[in-house]
Structure formats: C-alpha cells, structure tokens
C-alpha cells in the first residue's frame, strides 16, 4: 500500500468526491481523504475549494489527522483569509492542551499562517507559550516570534516579544537558548542597527555553556552569533577560543566552519608570541583538511573559504599542499578551486611537486581545466622566482605538444613571465614564433604581438611578422588591434629606417578607417607624439614598465578582513562583501577584525580615526598610482593592472576617468597650440579630437575637465550652492577648508578650496569620510599634487562614489569628514543637499508612478509649503529637471497646475511628489510620498533650494 494511489485519478468529479469523503462519518475515510488532498497539494494541484471541509476535520484527537489538516491550512490560509479565521478557535484551544506536543504544534502552525487577522489572535497564546513550563514549547515559541516578525514587525515590537526573546537567552535549557539566538539573529538581519543581540561577557558565558549541550544546528547559530562579539582583551579572547576549539572535531561540517570563523577572528587579538597562538594555528589545519574528504558540494564551499584563510594566514596549511591535488573525477568546480589554492600555497619548498602536478593536469580532457592549469604554471613562475626557469621549460614542453589551446594559453602566460623577468628568457622567442600561425584566439594573438613588439630589436623579421597581422586588421578584435598599433610603434622607434611605411599604414588604419574610439584616440596620441617630439615619444612608448607581481590576484586586504569575519557565509563563497548581496534598503554592518591588543590606535574618536587609518593603508593597493596606469595603458590591455577584480566598480571607473581626463587634457594643451602637427609624417589626420583646449596644468586640468564634462552634459545645470567654510583655520592649525557639493553628468563631486593660512608648507593631503546614510565615499585620493605653500589656495574636486559603508546619520544628510595633512588629522562635519543623490534615470513610467503612488501608504505622505516663489509651473518644471527631478505628468484644474514628479536616489529609493502651483499665488504646496519617509524633509529642502536659486 503506497501513497501513489492518491495520484491515480484526475477524472471530472474528483473534488466533489473528496468533499463527500471529507464529510464522511468514518474517521478512517476522513483521514484517507485528507491524505488525498495533501497529495494533490504537493504536486501543485489546486484543492483550495475544499477549505471549509478540511478545516472541519481539525477538531479531532487524532494527532496525525490534526497534523495533516495543519499542513493544508498553512498552504491555503493565505488565499482564504476569512475562512482561516474559522480555525482560530481550535488553535487557541490547542495552545492550552495538556500535551506539550499539541501546544507546541498549535503555536508553530499558527505562526506559519501568514494572515494578518490571525496574527492578532496569536499574540496571547504565544505569550503564554514563551513562558511555558515545558522547554519544548518554549523553544518552538521562540522560533514563532521570528515568524511573526516576518509578517508584522511592528506588532512584535509593540507586544514586547523581543524582550521576552532576549530573556530566553538565559534559559536553563540549551535548546531554548539556541533557538532564541537563531530567532534573534534572523530578526536582527532586517534591523541592521538595532542592538538586539547585545552581547556582554555574561551572555557570552551563557552561550558558551549552551554550546556544549545543544544540537548541531543550535551550535551553528550560537557560533555565528559569537563571531559578532568583540572580546574586551586578549585574555577573554583566548578563553573563548579554548571553549570553541572542541567544535572543530564535530561531524557536521557547518559546525566546523563556523568554529573556524570564530577562531580566525578572535586569534587576531592574541599576541603572536603566545604559546597558545601557535597551538591554535596547528589545531586549525586538520579540520580544514577533513572538510576536503567530504561530498563535493561541501568541498566546494570549504575550498572557497580555505582560499580566504590561505590568503590571510598561509602558515596554517603550508604543509598540506597534497590534499589539494586534483583527482580526475572531481567535479569541475572543485578542480578549479583546488588549482587556485595550489598556486597560493606554492613556495620554493614545494614548487617541484606543484609543477609536476600542473603538467599532469595539462593533459586532462576538460579544456577549461587544462587552460587554467597552464595559466597556473605561469603564475607559479611569477610567484616563486627560483622556479621561473623550470616553469618556462615546462611551458615549452607543453608548446611542443602542439595541442592548439595549450599552445595559446602557454603563450599568454609566457608574456607575463617576460614582463616579470625582462631580458631573461628571450631565447624561447624563436620557438614561440614557430607557432604564430596556429594562434586564433585574440588573447593569444595579442600576447604574441606584444612579445614581437617588445623584443623587436632581437627578432630579425619582426616587421614581416607584424605586417602579416596587419593584413586582416579590421577583422581582428579590439584587443589585438590596440596591441598591434602599439607594437608597430615600438618597432618604428627601435628600427625607424625600414619601418616608416608600416607605421604610417597602421596609424592611418587606426585613425581613419576605424570607428572604435579607443583605437582612434590611441592612434592620434601616437601620431602626435611621433610628429612633435620623437624623443619624447621614445620616452613614453618605450618607458620602463612597472613589474607585475603575484599580488595581482590577491583579495584587497580590507575586503579580505571583512570576508574572514564572514567565513562560512554566502559572502565567503562569492568573495564579495555582504553589502553586495543584501537586497534593497536593508543595510549591512561592515565587520572588521578586532585589533591586536596594544597596537596603539588613538582612542578619543575611534570610529573616524580607524577609518582614516584603514584608508591610508589601503589607498596604495586599491587605486594604482597614475604612473602605473599610464605605463599600463601604453603597454597592454592584457594583464589586469594592480587593481584586482575585487575593486568596487565605481572606484575603478573613477580611476579610469581620472586618467583619461588627464591624458586628454595634457595632449590637448600641448598639441592644440602647435600648428606643425603631423609634419614628420607628412599627412594630417582627418578628424580632430573634440575634447581639446583644456589648460595644460595637469593637476588643475583634472578638475577642469570634470567641469567641462558637467557643463556639456547638462545644459539646464543643477543648482550648486556657493562654497561655505567647513573648517575654519583656527581649528585646524592654519588649514582652512571651504567647499560645496555638485552633481555633474552623474558624478557626485565634493569641491573643496584648501587655503594654507599657516606659516609653513602643507603636504600629504588625504581625505576620508565616516560612514554615512547614503554610503558616500571618496572615489579616489585627494588630488593635491603640489605642496600648498603659505597663503596659497588650491581648488580640488573630489569625485565621490556611493558604495561606501552605510550608517544612518542624524540629520540624515550629515557627513563627517577627516582630512589629514603633514601636520595633523582634522575632523569636521558638513551637510550635503540630498539632490546630490538624485540620479539621471529617475524618470518613472506613468503607469508605474500611478501604481506606486497608490501603493505607498498615506501615512508616508508629507506636506510642505514653499513660500515666495514666483516661477510658473513650466519654468519650475524645467528648473527642477536640471536637478534630476522629473515631471511625469501635469494636470490643470481651476487655474491650479499640478505637477507629478519622480526622483530616484542613488540607493534605489524612489520619491514621488506632487507640486501644486496656483496662478498668482507665490506659495506652492508640495506633497512628498516615499517608502522611506525620513527623506521627505530633505527633499523639500532641495525644492526650496532649487526653486529659489
């Protein structure tokens, strides 16, 4: 007898038949009928029509039948809320049942019925159950609070359930403690700034006691909660570590990984010379190795985390290289991760082993894996200098196999090796050239071209080789075209006599026949360089290149720190900060590793000083200095520069912009004025670049360029308030800062005037923001390139991104800033107009507007009066448009114009407004509707500002 019988019929009167059976007098028949109903439900059939009949079966002392009816209720109550009320009485009665199993079941099920009306009735029984004498009921009730919070957060807070839940952390039963922690953690996730889990040494002690006795799942909740705690000193840290260490031997891998997280975080506080520190390091290796013998899915998650751990503390696994060796039947996702970790662990001691393995992998079947293995050999060469020679010979062996994709991949990595060890392995160039014809992938072709260009003086037929590529120039990918252009220019500079024709050919191909702006621009740059000053051209094009190093693929240190605090989570699997995951308005608190005791950070304003410290450390790694980028641009588009893939995109963008601007204006200044352009080459380029004419000063040019872009991009022009003094010289040892904010073509800028009113020169400026409501953060370093001498004022424009850490400020638009120079660090705060955050694509569809307007509850509507404004509605509309406040519709009723407008903030919040303008009346009425009603006030201020200026 199996349940498959329940699926057999789909004939016409099925529902009718079931109805009859449900109302049967025979218990057994009833139960069978409910089972049939459930079976239909599981496969997605709609049996909601049977609601009243099934609910009628609820009044029973048969536990199985009861459970089945509950299952049904949970599924369908939402679609039949009025009917669901019928069930309430039974629930309330069941919550009083002498059998704790029934009490718990009732409270559990009630929480799963996501109907508002029912939740009201749930409060009383839930309150009782939270204080029930039976721990089984209490632990079920704890979870129920989380369910209720999900449905109606306000209700839970009003009823004081959160406090009861906090009390349960001190419950005598470990299971109850674990569930209370789990429920609180889940609730806290939607309230990032609440102090729900207020951890102090007493609660920590209770959690540690419960940790030993609760179920494996409870242990995970408690460990994850512990990881959020910051111990007071190294002694407390050590004692927690000691009590968590036994969890490393748990059979459940999730428990193990959560324990690893706690230990990795807390050991940061231990002094390194402590014996215990060494012991702990040793204890961490075996459990991590054990994770790798588990099922492949577990292995994958473990490997992603080990990847982080190895970067943070390579010493833990340095002797365990062999466990990362790839087995041929590992799933591909495990293979690729293992390979990555092998390279991270490669050192002089084990390089021979690693290379032998990698060579083995290069003969595997899976093409992706083989490619990555070949690439790995190149990375080893760059990482372990002593092994470079061996790596090169291994790569040459692989090239001899003539397997097409292996050869191409090998050439790509050999190019990197050449960059790292210039003038060392050029003897292999001949071998490489033999394979020229077989290269069909852009990356490999570009790499080969780069090699030919770079070593043009040693390759006799370099011109022939490059010329052969030139034939199909227009069919090549951009990457190859750019590379070819650069390589030929290099060749020309090295052997000018015989290649003049070639260089002319490529320049005209790039500038006249190509519609790719990058290619054209680079063509022009070279052309002009060559024509005005060949010596300078040589200096620029053949400049010494920055060396590439193994660090290119490491995770940036501050991100790594944050990820270490999130070991075992999704963030650790994706190697992205949690803020990149969490949806919508839910903020995330950034976690940092605790500081080691006695590291001597100033304590009076820890928040700001800490973030300033962090920034100055991080700055050089996040944003490559201009010189680097310049070198790289001229050289290659192949290898990523020092900025790894983990740099937030907006930042990278900022850096690129900066460079592009700098270069263009530099060139424009130099060449725009020189009429003898192209003299050396005979022909003048047909098209003139348009963005010329910027002043030739590099430092100022940057800011000016942004200005230029702003005025071109937005004819209406957003209102920019005049600069005001933010930091008086009195308070900052002679440094006066005044400034304002502007939004120009989608870039938020902080415009600063720095004035030196002291007697001595100021240098080494840097800027940092405290966390703020909208995550504003500098998108680049403060560009004060020259020292600021006494009585000099410098204008600086700092592009801002909105991807920084978020914390709600009071008032909302408050921004706390720290500025550092060679003298001291100064703090000030300023307020920015919220219109800064109005984005360009803030125009809503009419339909969406209507629906959203209706959808936002009326409680969120705020009304303001704007007085003394003498614009008519059209003028107002166009003025507002300049600040990205878009008019969706206009309605005129009784000489009164109503403008419906939408605004979108950088964090995706929509603001809808209605502006009423009465002919002849200088007072406007503004209604603002927004889901986040706290911004309304500031939106009103912006209207005032924009309309009156």
């Amino acid at each position: 007898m199996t349940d498959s019988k329940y699926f057999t019929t789909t004939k016409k009167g099925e529902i009718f038949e079931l109805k009859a059976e449900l109302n049967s007098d025979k218990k057994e028949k009833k139960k069978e009928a409910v089972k049939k109903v459930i079976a239909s439900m599981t496969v997605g059939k709609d049996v909601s029509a049977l609601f009243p009949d099934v609910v009628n079966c609820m009044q029973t002392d048969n536990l199985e039948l009861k459970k089945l009816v509950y299952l049904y209720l949970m599924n369908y109550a939402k679609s039949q809320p009025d009917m669901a009320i019928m069930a309430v009485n039974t629930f309330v009665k069941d919550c009083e049942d002498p059998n704790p199993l029934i009490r718990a079941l009732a409270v559990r099920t009630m929480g799963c019925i996501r109907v508002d009306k029912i939740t009201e009735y749930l409060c009383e029984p839930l309150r009782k159950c939270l204080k029930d004498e039976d721990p089984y009921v209490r632990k079920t009730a704890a979870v129920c609070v989380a369910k209720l919070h999900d449905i109606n957060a306000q209700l839970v807070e009003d009823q004081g359930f959160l406090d009861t839940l906090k009390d349960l952390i001190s419950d005598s039963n470990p299971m109850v403690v674990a569930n209370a922690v789990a429920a609180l953690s889940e609730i806290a996730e939607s309230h990032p700034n609440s102090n729900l889990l207020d951890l102090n040494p007493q609660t920590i002690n209770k959690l540690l006691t419960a940790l030993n006795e609760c179920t494996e799942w409870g242990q995970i909740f408690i460990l994850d909660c512990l990881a959020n705690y910051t111990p007071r000193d190294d002694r407390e840290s050590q004692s927690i570590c000691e009590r968590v260490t036994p969890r490393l031997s748990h059979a459940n891998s999730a428990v193990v990984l959560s324990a690893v997280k706690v230990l990795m975080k807390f050991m940061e506080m231990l002094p390194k010379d402590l014996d215990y520190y060494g012991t702990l390091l040793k204890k961490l290796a075996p459990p991590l190795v054990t994770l790798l013998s588990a099922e492949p899915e577990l292995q994958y998650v473990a490997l992603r985390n080990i990847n982080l751990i190895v970067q943070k503390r390579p010493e833990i696994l340095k002797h365990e290289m062999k466990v990362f060796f790839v087995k041929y039947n590992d799933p591909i996702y495990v293979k690729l991760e293992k390979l990555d970790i092998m390279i991270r662990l490669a050192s002089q001691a084990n390089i021979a082993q690693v290379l032998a393995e990698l060579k083995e992998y290069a003969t595997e079947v899976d093409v992706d894996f083989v490619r990555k293995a070949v690439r790995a050999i190149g990375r080893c060469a760059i990482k372990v200098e002593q092994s470079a020679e061996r790596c090169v010979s291994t790569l040459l062996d692989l090239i001899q196999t003539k397997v097409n994709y292996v050869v191409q991949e090998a050439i790509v990595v050999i190019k990197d090796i050449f960059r790292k060890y210039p003038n060392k392995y050029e003897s292999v160039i001949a071998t490489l050239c033999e394979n020229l014809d077989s290269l069909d992938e852009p990356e490999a072709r570009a790499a080969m071209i780069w090699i030919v260009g770079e070593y043009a003086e040693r390759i006799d037929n370099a011109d022939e080789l490059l010329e052969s590529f030139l034939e199909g120039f227009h069919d090549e990918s951009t990457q190859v075209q750019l590379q070819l252009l650069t390589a030929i220019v290099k060749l020309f500079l090295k052997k000018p006599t015989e290649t003049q024709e070639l260089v002319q050919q490529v320049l005209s191909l790039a500038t006249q026949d190509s519609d790719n702006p990058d290619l054209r621009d680079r063509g022009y740059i070279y052309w002009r360089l060559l024509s005005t000053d060949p010596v300078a051209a040589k200096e620029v094009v053949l400049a010494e290149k920055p060396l590439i190093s193994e660090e290119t693929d490491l995770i940036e240190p501050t991100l790594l720190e944050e990820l270490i605090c999130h070991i075992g989570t999704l963030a650790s699997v994706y190697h992205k900060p949690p803020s990149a995951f969490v949806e919508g308005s839910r903020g995330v608190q950034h976690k940092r590793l605790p500081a080691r005791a006695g590291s001597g950070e100033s304590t009076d304003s820890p928040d700001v000083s800490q973030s300033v410290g962090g920034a100055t450390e991080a700055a050089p790694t996040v944003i490559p200095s201009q010189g680097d980028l310049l070198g790289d641009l001229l050289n290659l588009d192949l290898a990523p520069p020092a900025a790894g893939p983990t740099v937030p995109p907006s930042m990278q963008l900022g850096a690129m912009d900066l460079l592009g601007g700098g270069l263009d204006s530099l060139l424009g200044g130099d060449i725009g004025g020189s009429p003898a352009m192209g003299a050396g080459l005979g022909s003048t380029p047909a098209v003139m670049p348009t963005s010329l004419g910027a002043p030739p000063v590099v430092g100022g040019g940057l800011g000016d360029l942004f200005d230029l872009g702003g005025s071109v991009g937005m004819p209406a022009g957003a209102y920019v308030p005049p600069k005001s003094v933010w930091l008086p010289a009195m308070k900052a040892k002679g440094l006066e800062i005044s400034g304002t904010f502007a939004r120009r073509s989608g870039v938020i800028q902080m415009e600063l005037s720095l004035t030196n009113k002291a007697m001595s020169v100021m240098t080494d400026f840097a800027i940092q923001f405290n966390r703020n409501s909208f995550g504003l953060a500098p998108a680049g370093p403060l560009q004060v390139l020259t020292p600021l001498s006494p009585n000099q004022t410098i204008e600086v424009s700092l592009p801002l991104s909105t991807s920084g850490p978020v914390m709600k400020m009071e008032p909302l638009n408050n921004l706390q800033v720290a500025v550092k120079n060679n003298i001291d660090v100064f703090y000030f705060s300023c307020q920015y107009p919220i219109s800064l955050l109005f984005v360009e694509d803030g125009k809503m569809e009419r339909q969406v507007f209507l629906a959203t307007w209706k959808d936002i509850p009326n409680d969120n509507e705020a009304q303001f009066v704007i007085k003394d404004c003498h614009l008519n509605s059209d003028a107002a509309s166009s003025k507002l448009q300049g600040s990205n406040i878009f008019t969706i519709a206009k309605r005129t009723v009784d000489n009164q114009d109503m403008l419906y407008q939408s605004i979108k903030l950088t964090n995706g919040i929509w603001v809808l407004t209605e502006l009423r303008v009465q002919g002849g009346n200088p007072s406007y009425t503004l209604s603002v509707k927004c889901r986040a009603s706290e911004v309304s006030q500031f939106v009103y201020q912006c209207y005032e500002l924009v309309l009156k200026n």
Partner: protein
Amino acid sequence: MIHSLFLINSAGDIFLEKHWKSVISRSVCDYFFEAQEKAGEPDNVPPVIRTPHHYLINIYREKIFFVSVIQTEVPPLFVIEFLHRVAEMFQDYFGESSEAAIKDNVVIVYELLEEMLDNGFPLATESNILKELIKPPTILRSVVNTITGSSNVGETLPTGQLSTIPWRRAGVKYTNNEAYFDVVEEIDAILDKSGTTVFAEIQGVIDACVKLSGMPDLTLSFMNPRLLDDVSFHPCVRFKRWESERVLSFVPPDGNFQLMSYHVSAQNLVAIPVYVKQNISFFETGSSGRLDITVGPKQTMGKTVECVLVTIHMPKVILSANLTPTQGTYTYDPVTKILMWDIGKLNHQKLPNLKGSLSLQSGAAKPEENPSLNIEFKIQQLAISGLKVNRLDMYGEKYKPFKGVKYVTKAGKFQVRT
C-alpha cells in the same frame, strides 16, 4: 533560513515542492535549469547558484537534485548538511532515496519535512527522534493501520527532544543486547606512471550498530590511539575524555550510527596494498593502440585483496577493445567509453593481466589525453592504518552485552595515472 525545497528528477520535472515560509513560485528553478544546462554533466552543476532575488543551493543524490531556496544570508554548509540529512532520512525510511520511493510515500515525506524544519530552522533531524514522531512505513504496519484505524504518527513527545542526550530515546528494550563496531578505512591515493605515490591518505570511520537496553554508558579504547590526530565525532562522544585520556566515552544512540571519522595523512603510515603495471600506447598510424595492464599485491599485511575492479575512462576516439584477461572478465562500453575489468581476488602466484588491442575511429588523430585508472578493492579483517580496538566497557546497566569489532579496508579514490 531555508525557505523552500524542490526535488527535481533527471528529466527536469519538479516532482515535489515544500515551502517553510511563504510560497516561492517554482519558476525560480528556471535559474537552476539554466545552470544545469551549462554544466552538462549533472555532477558538475555548481552547488550554489545566484539568482536576482534568491540563492539556490543544491545537491545531487540518486539521480535527484535537491534544490533549496534561501533568501537571506545563511551559511551554505548549513543548507548542504541539511539536504544531506534529508536524503539520508529518505534512505532510512524507504530503503532508497529514489523518485519512485518518494512518490510512493509522499504524505510521509511531507510530514517528515515538516518535522525537520520549522520556519526554516532545523527542528528534529535525528533519525531516532523522527522515527518516534513518524513511524516508517512497513507493509505490516499499513495493514494493521487499515484494520485498526490507528495512525503512524506518534502521540507522545519524543523523549530525546529535550534531554541533554537528544540522540537517544528512553525506554529502549532488547532481549538480545549487542554492540557491533565496524572500523572501515578507505585509501585515497594518486600513483603516477612509475608507481610512485604522489599522494595518499586514509579516511577511516567507525560505524556502530548498538542495540542495548536502557541507558548504557560505553567506553571504547584503542591499542594505538596516537594514530588519530584528526578526528570528527558523533555528538554523543565526550570530547573532554578524548582530550585527556584518548578513549571514546559515550551514551550511544539506538541503532545504526557513525561513531567517529578520522583521517590519517602522514604519508609513511599509508601502505599501498596493490601495484599496477600498465602500458597504454597508440600507434602513430593505423588507428589502433595497445593496452597491457597487470595488477599485483604490494603491502597487504598477509591478507588477501578481494573484489578488485579496474575502471578506465578511455579517450573519446576509442571505438572498441579486443582484450584477453588472464583472470576475471572485462567490458568496454563504446558509448560512455568506460573499460571495466572485474578481477576478483588477487592471486600471489599468478598475477592477473589484461592485454590486447584498441581500435580507434578511422582517421582520428592520436588521442592527446592520458586515461587514468581507477582501482577498487577490499581487504577484510584489516585496518590498513594499523588502528586496533582494545576493549569496550559498559557502565550504567547490569546485563552483559555481545560485543564485536570488524575491520575492513577499501579503496577510496584510488587512481593510477598513465
């Protein structure tokens, strides 16, 4: 926490869905199907898949994808471990975790899933407790239930739920009290062409079958506990006693469970019981090749190596194989390109050998890749690491139990490169 679970068969049908919070449309599985298509082989589907609003975490067991949906930040291992537990529970209840078994018992499956999670939080995942709450189906029970009208859902609160030993139920009674322990060791190894060990380690587990009345408190000690420095225990094992005395002290769950697992990686401790001499070569012309494999015993501590099976994933261009084994039988599947040679017992006097020719697709180039050999074997009455149980003592109960320990060594992922 865990939001929903979808069970998907290899044909891509969603045959069961369960939601612990609000209902999530099954269209979310489209992202999974997309990833599945991209991965090709079902084994290669990435375990964590990101979609615009959810994360899909999946495992693949018995030709079924268990796909769970999560919405907030939840430790992925937590979800994967839970999914393993679900698959194990099906196995435990229905004897197999197959689509047919699940469909046949869909109501029990639903009841089980409901008991295992509450609002996405694990509730009862111990087999002992679940079996008290929901009785596993047996033919006899369903007959009795139909006649008497009783149900297969327990009426009482499972005792284990609240005690400090949640894994054991109270009031266990047996007429024959017995405790058996199986020490099972698997050798994972990679050998290179020349037979040198590239990598080797031992994964060991101690499986227990304990059927003892009352609340027995057991102590298991080893002759050579120093071998074990990397261990994972069942929650019942008292870690403190292990730390201080190197004995396993525990109140066991009732029935079958895994007491501990361990891991021996020190290379010099891992003996390799078999060796393989192989030569697979392809001629430059003529679309053919030769294969010659010999398997022999190496460090076997005087025991017989049994159930030897060699599996080779041949390159795609191999059409057929014409071979002669001196012992056992061989098969070559031209579709999956898998050559299997079932040898059986290893004989010291006459080493088994498989020799013959391979034919390639006409005109195909010589294959580039080297096929790896996968070896399976089994050695009874031997734990290759040398681990030995010293004694088992019982406290807390008066009766005298039957005790037994069995050892077996198997090949885990044992690969020979060519």
